[in-house]
Structure formats: C-alpha cells, structure tokens
C-alpha cells in the first residue's frame, strides 16, 4: 500500500515532466509559411563594439583551407578571413573581391584581373600580383593537394604583368573559371605561405581575423581594424558549434546566441513573437539525392529506377519535414545555371510504378537496401520505406556513419540505394562522370556537359546544361527528393544576417547590432 502511493507520486512527476517537454518543443502553426525573405534595415545607431554569437552546426576539422576539404571551412573562412580574386553575392552570382575588375578576351582564352591597390594582408604587407600568381600556381601545380584543384583544370599559365595585374591564360574556353575562382581555389595567400601553419595562424586579407579556436565548442573572429575595404560593423563574432537542434533552440531562446542558423522547421514555435525574433527563409543548393545504383543490381534497369521515382510523393515528404524545402525534379536547383522545372518527369504515380516493376519482372515484389548517413533526419528513411512498400518494394534502411558511407558507397560503390545531401552548387558534373558513385554513363550527357564548359557565352552554356539535366532526369539517373531551404532565427536588433546558402559561406560583412 505504501509502495503504491510512492509509485503514484513518481508517475505524476514523470507525467508533469512530459508535459513540460511537450510545451518546449511544440510545432509551428503553419511551418510551410514560416520565415521571411527580407530583414530590417541596418539601424542608425550601430554598436561597433558588439559581439555576436552565431550557432553553426558542423565544426571544421582543421583551419588549413589550402589542403583540407570540408564545407565547414569554406563557410566561415571564405570572405571573412581569406579572400579570393572573385566572390559570390547573396544570390550566388560571381562578383569582384580582391580583384576589383576583370576582362575576358574575345576568344575566351585570356582573363585579366586587376587587384585592389590598397589591399593588405593581416600582417600589414601589401597584396600584390606576385602573391596572387603564387597562390594560383599552388593550386594548378602537378601533385597539388588542394581539394578544389579541378576548378582550375583549364588554366594553362598564370602571370603578373605589373604589381596589380594578373593574367590567366586557358587551354580552352571555360565557362566555369570565374565561378571556380570564387571558391577556395581562388584564395590569395601571401607568397611563400607554409600551408601546414594555417591551422593555428592565418594571414588572410579579409575584414576579420582569427582570434581563437576552442576545439569542440567555438571559433572566435575579431574585426580587422586595418581592413582595406569597408570595415566590419561588429567587433567580435563567436561561432558556437551546436549539433543538436533542441540544444541550439534553447540557446537562442535564452539569449546564449543572437543568430541560430539551420533551424529545424518543426521547432519554430518558440520564435513566433515577431517583436523578439525574425525568422529568415533562404535558398540552398542542398539537393537531397536518392542515388540509384545505375551500374549494378536491380536499379540498373531503367524501369526500376523510374518506378522508384514515381512511388515517392515528394510534397508529402516535404510536409513531413516541416515544409522548409522545395521540389526539384532534376539535378539542377533553381539558383544554378541550367535550371528548368522538371517535376513533371516521373511525377508521383504509384499505380504506374507497380506496372513498371511488373514489366521489369518484379511483379511479386523486390527487396532493396538504402544506406543513409546518420546525420540526416531519420524520418526520411521511414518515409521512403513506407512509400516504396505501397508499390511492392521492401526497403531496408541502413543508417551508417558518414565515414562508412564515404568508404562503402562513395569509394567502393557498394550500394543499391543511397541518400546524401549533395550540397555543392553547380555539381551537374557528377552525372557527366561515369566513374562517380552514381554509375551513370550517358555519352550525350557527357558531350553536352563538356560543350557547356567550353561554350562561348552564358546563354549557350545554359541551353546545353538544360539539355543535359533533362536527359539525366529522364534517365532516372537518381531521384531528387527536395532542395532544402534554410531557416535562420535572428534576435531583434541584429541586421545584415546572411540568408541564402548559409552552410556554404557565411559572409559577415554587413552584420550589425543596434545600440541598446
């Protein structure tokens, strides 16, 4: 009798706790409409001594941007610490950076870049054409360890004609060259930089300097007061690496962070007060790609691949995940060149999917396995399994560590289905490379893609890319579940916050805080 009273008390306590948890993580009224694309104007009275705490998700594995891959390095280091000859604007269009202007010769084989004359490195030295030439040559050199070296594969020679002019000559026309230079392949380091020292000591040219890295928790930047261009408007930025979405939400709610990037669309409810928070909705190039092994297994058969595509209701999936995503239908997202709406190709049609499977000889059912890195929401795997079950495919979902995915799927092509977020912009090339893990080999696509690279102008290029992308989709070379949209929660008083492509680069140039 005594014991049962105690247990009842305990049970009440547990239920009260559950209720409290539920209150803390409710879903938004209509997440599909949450988030805006404009933000408040910069305040008149800017607090130039402000510190801004920003929640990011993935911590860099190293700060050696010259030889270590990873979007987490690009995200914080490009534009803020290091600058290239060119950069990207908030809509992923190429714009000048250390090179204030550039010309392309009429045959498209010579590019001439003019460097800003007052640009300096953080150690005070002037940025000269010799530095830029040296840096580009490190990327194009034989045996280069720059993971982005392929971006400059068309370069024949790099030279300086005076202190501030760099001439790049190409082997053939390359419509991707200027884009390539906006990435890490285009960074200008001081001539003779020992890349192995970049981990702890940077000498960039950007508006911020590296102040400290607490591994496992945060990286701190401080304003470069000697910056050659318009100086940053905040004194300090602390990037806090918080993987867990709930923990990140708590941090933003309690004021531990000023900006929360990559917010889970189903956890927006605490930020519904517009006087306290702005929710920004931005574009990404994160294509959640369901790879269908084109080279081996049942998915070698076009009918099976098409059946899988037609069996999956994409709008339903987007709704399940909270609504912050758009349908795509092909390998090119709306913000990349070569985009056109392709969602009508292999649109949702479970009955036809069953018919296709029957024709392919799987009328009695088919067993498949999908390998998914465990960093993505588990709901995606569950959703795929339940959708495919309706057309007679029994899908086993195997959650794997990302490194295991890299080894098994990416390197050894040991998979039937695989799901990964292909976050790179302009990566249609993966479908023009038969050795890539997709195993997709279509001579026309390869020809059109190559022609697009050497096209004489953007319109010719875009037409060829469109043709290739359409073919890729018609061949069901993969399925594209959705392109993510990214949500950022900003506390009131903070402006100039990056909205688009925030996991690729996080340009802090316009970030400002109103004086209290």
């Amino acid at each position, binding site marked *: 009798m005594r*014991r049962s009273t105690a247990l009842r008390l305990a049970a009440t306590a547990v239920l009260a706790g559950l209720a409290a948890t539920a209150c803390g993580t409710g879903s938004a009224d209509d997440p599909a409409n949450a988030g805006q694309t404009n933000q408040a104007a910069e305040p008149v009275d800017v607090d130039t001594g402000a510190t801004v705490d920003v929640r990011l998700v993935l911590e860099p594995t190293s700060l050696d941007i010259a*030889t270590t*891959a990873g979007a987490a390095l690009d995200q914080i280091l490009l534009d803020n610490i290091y600058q290239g000859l060119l950069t990207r604007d908030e809509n992923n269009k190429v714009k000048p950076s250390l090179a204030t202007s550039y010309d392309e010769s009429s045959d498209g084989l010579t590019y001439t870049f003019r460097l800003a004359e007052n640009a300096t490195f953080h150690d005070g030295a002037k940025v000269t054409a010799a530095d830029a030439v040296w840096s580009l040559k490190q990327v194009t050199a034989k045996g280069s360890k720059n*993971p982005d070296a392929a971006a400059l594969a068309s370069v024949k020679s790099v030279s300086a004609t005076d202190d501030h002019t760099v001439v790049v000559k190409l082997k053939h026309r390359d419509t991707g060259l200027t884009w390539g230079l906006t990435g890490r392949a285009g960074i200008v380091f001081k001539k003779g930089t020992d890349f192995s020292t970049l981990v702890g000591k940077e000498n960039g040219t950007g508006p911020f300097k590296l102040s400290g890295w*607490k591994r496992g928790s945060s990286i701190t930047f401080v304003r470069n007061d000697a910056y050659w261009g318009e100086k940053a408007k905040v004194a300090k930025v602390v990037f806090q690496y918080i993987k867990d979405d709930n923990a990140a939400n708590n941090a933003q709610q309690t004021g531990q962070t000023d900006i929360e990037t990559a917010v889970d669309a189903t956890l927006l409810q605490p930020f519904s007060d517009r006087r306290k928070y702005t929710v920004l909705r931005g574009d990404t190039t994160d294509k959640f790609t369901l790879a269908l092994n084109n080279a081996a297994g049942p998915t070698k058969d076009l009918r099976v691949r098409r059946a899988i595509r037609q069996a999956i209701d994409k709008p339903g999936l987007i709704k399940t995940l909270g609504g912050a995503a758009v349908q795509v239908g092909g390998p090119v997202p709306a913000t990349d060149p070569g985009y056109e709406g392709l969602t009508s190709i292999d649109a949702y049609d479970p009955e036809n999917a069953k018919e296709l499977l029957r024709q392919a000889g799987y009328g009695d059912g088919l067993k498949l396995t999908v390998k998914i890195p465990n960093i993505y929401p588990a709901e995606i795997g569950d959703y795929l399994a339940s959708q495919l079950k309706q057309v007679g495919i029994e899908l086993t979902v195997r959650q794997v560590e990302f490194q295991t995915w*890299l*080894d098994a799927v990416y390197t050894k092509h040991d998979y039937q289905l695989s799901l990964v977020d292909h976050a790179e912009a302009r990566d249609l090339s993966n479908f023009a490379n038969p050795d890539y893990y997709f195993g997709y080999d279509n001579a026309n696509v390869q020809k059109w893609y190559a022609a697009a690279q050497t096209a004489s102008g953007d319109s010719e290029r875009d037409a060829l890319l469109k043709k290739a992308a359409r073919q890729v989709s018609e061949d069901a070379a993969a399925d594209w579940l959705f392109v993510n949209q990214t949500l950022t929660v900003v506390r009131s008083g903070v402006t100039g916050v990056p909205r688009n492509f925030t996991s690729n680069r996080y340009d802090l140039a316009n970030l400002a805080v109103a004086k209290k």
Partner: protein
Amino acid sequence: MTLYVLRRAGLLVVSLFAASVLIFLVLRLLPGDVAQTIGGIKATPTQVAAVRHDLGLDRPLTAQYGSWIGGVVTGDFGRSVLDGTSVSGQLAEKFAVTGPLAVGAVLLALGFAVPLGVLAAVRRDSRLGGAVNALGQLGIALPTLWVGLLLVVVFAVQVRWLPAQGFPVDGWDEPGRALRSLVLPWLTLALSEGAVLLRFVRSAVLDVLHQDWLRTARAKGHTRTSALLRHGLRNAAVPVVSVLGLQIAALVAGAVVVEQVFVLPGVGQMLITDVGNRDLDKVQGEILLLTGAVLVIGFVVDLVHRLIDPKLRSAV
C-alpha cells in the same frame, strides 16, 4: 603490503600493453580513413592516395603500431593528423571540463546516496524508507538523456536560472560562469549514478544490520546508532567502494551522453568527433590514456579496500 603493491603494479603495466594492441587493432577495423576526411568528396582518388602516403597510412600495421608505441613509451601520445594538436594537450584541455563534471557528480551522488541509503536500510519498514527506496528505483529507471532534457526545459528555458547549454569560451578563467554551466550536468549525472549507489548502500547496510557482531556491540552497551557508526559503516563500505570504483569508470560513458545534451566540450564529445573524422592517431592516444586512468582507478580501489578491511591484508 609492498610485495602486493609491486605485483599489482606489474599487472597494471602488462594490462596497459595488451590494451594498446587491442585499441590499435580495433580502430583499424573501422571503414574509411582520415585521408578521405582531408580530401573530402571533391578530391581525386590520386590526391587521396597521395595524402594517405604522406601520412604513412599505407605502411604495414606493425610499422604503424611500432612508431606509435615507441612514442608512447617516451611520453609522446601522438598528434592529431588533422589539426596537429597533441593528444596530451587536448586531453588536458577537455579534462578541464570532464574532470570537474565527473568529480562533482560523484561527490554529489555520494552526498545524497550514502545518507539516504543508510536511512532506507535503517527505516526499511517505515513509509520514509519505502519512499526513499522508490525514489532510488525511479532514478535508475529514468534515462540520463531524458533527465537532462527535462532539467534544461525547467531550469534554463522556463525559469532561466542556469545556462541551457555550453561552456564559457574562456573556460575556468570565468569561474562563476563555468560553475553555473556545470550545475545541470552535475545534477543529471549525479541523479543516475547516485540512484545506483543508493541501492548498493542500502543493501550493504541491510547486510550489516543482521550481523552477529553488531548485536554483540549493542549487548556491550552501544546504542543502535553508535554501533552502526563505529562498526557497521566501515564494514558496509567495502562493497560500496567496489561499486564506486566501477561507477567512476561508467561515469566516462555517462559523461559522453551528458556532454552531448549540454554541448560541453569534454572528453566524450572529443572522442565522438575524432572517431567520426577517423583521426585515429589521436583517438588511440586518447583511449589509451583513458584506459590507463581506469586501470589506475582499479589499482587504487584495491589499495583502499586493503586499508578499510584488515581481513584482506592478512589473507595475502
């Protein structure tokens, strides 16, 4: 006693050597390697192979083990391939979080588990004893992760007394903030660890209460309380110390969960990240040092046993 200590110390060295071989080999079973982490998904296979060669990952395993263990013997536990930081330096930095986290949690757990456990044993037939016992059961049943989340929702998000997550950027240079950020993790860990201890204390004291020598002590004129304090607790302490030793080792595992929930840059979080990056040179050094710590704790627990319990000493 000296002979015993020497023998135990010899065993410790042999165990450490065996552990180093095991750690090295088991880590090599993981798919993927750090060269792929460095090269990412844009590097060509040739580039990745070049990185692998530069790092010596293409050498035979015996050679790799040899160069590692050679360093360990001279006190060099290795370096991160990715960012060049030393294993001992990084462990020291992370222990500044995990150490206080674990020690504080153990003290807190002992602080409530011992008095409550004794109370639950002595008053086992009363309402109070039953309630304490039920509380202990509940503490064991609740998942650490869930308790942590609940504490955050109540004390950080609702009433805003304590920070929801993280550790100050300047660490212990800001002692007030550092302490505040450890309060909820301490509670979370202490609750689950303490509940287990409470049950052991209770059963150990119950065992002792029925012993003949305790009755003898009371017959000689001791009150129940003084008999328990002078003779009972010391005897009850023997099994409790054993369990505590095991619990401290288990704390490392518990800390991994708690560090995730509270986003604390501690040892557990570092290990997860390093394994994910396949920074094996660093991981093997870290695990060897941790294994060493657990073995040394076992060694100390054995010695403490002998100090508490004269029966063990004469048995040699």
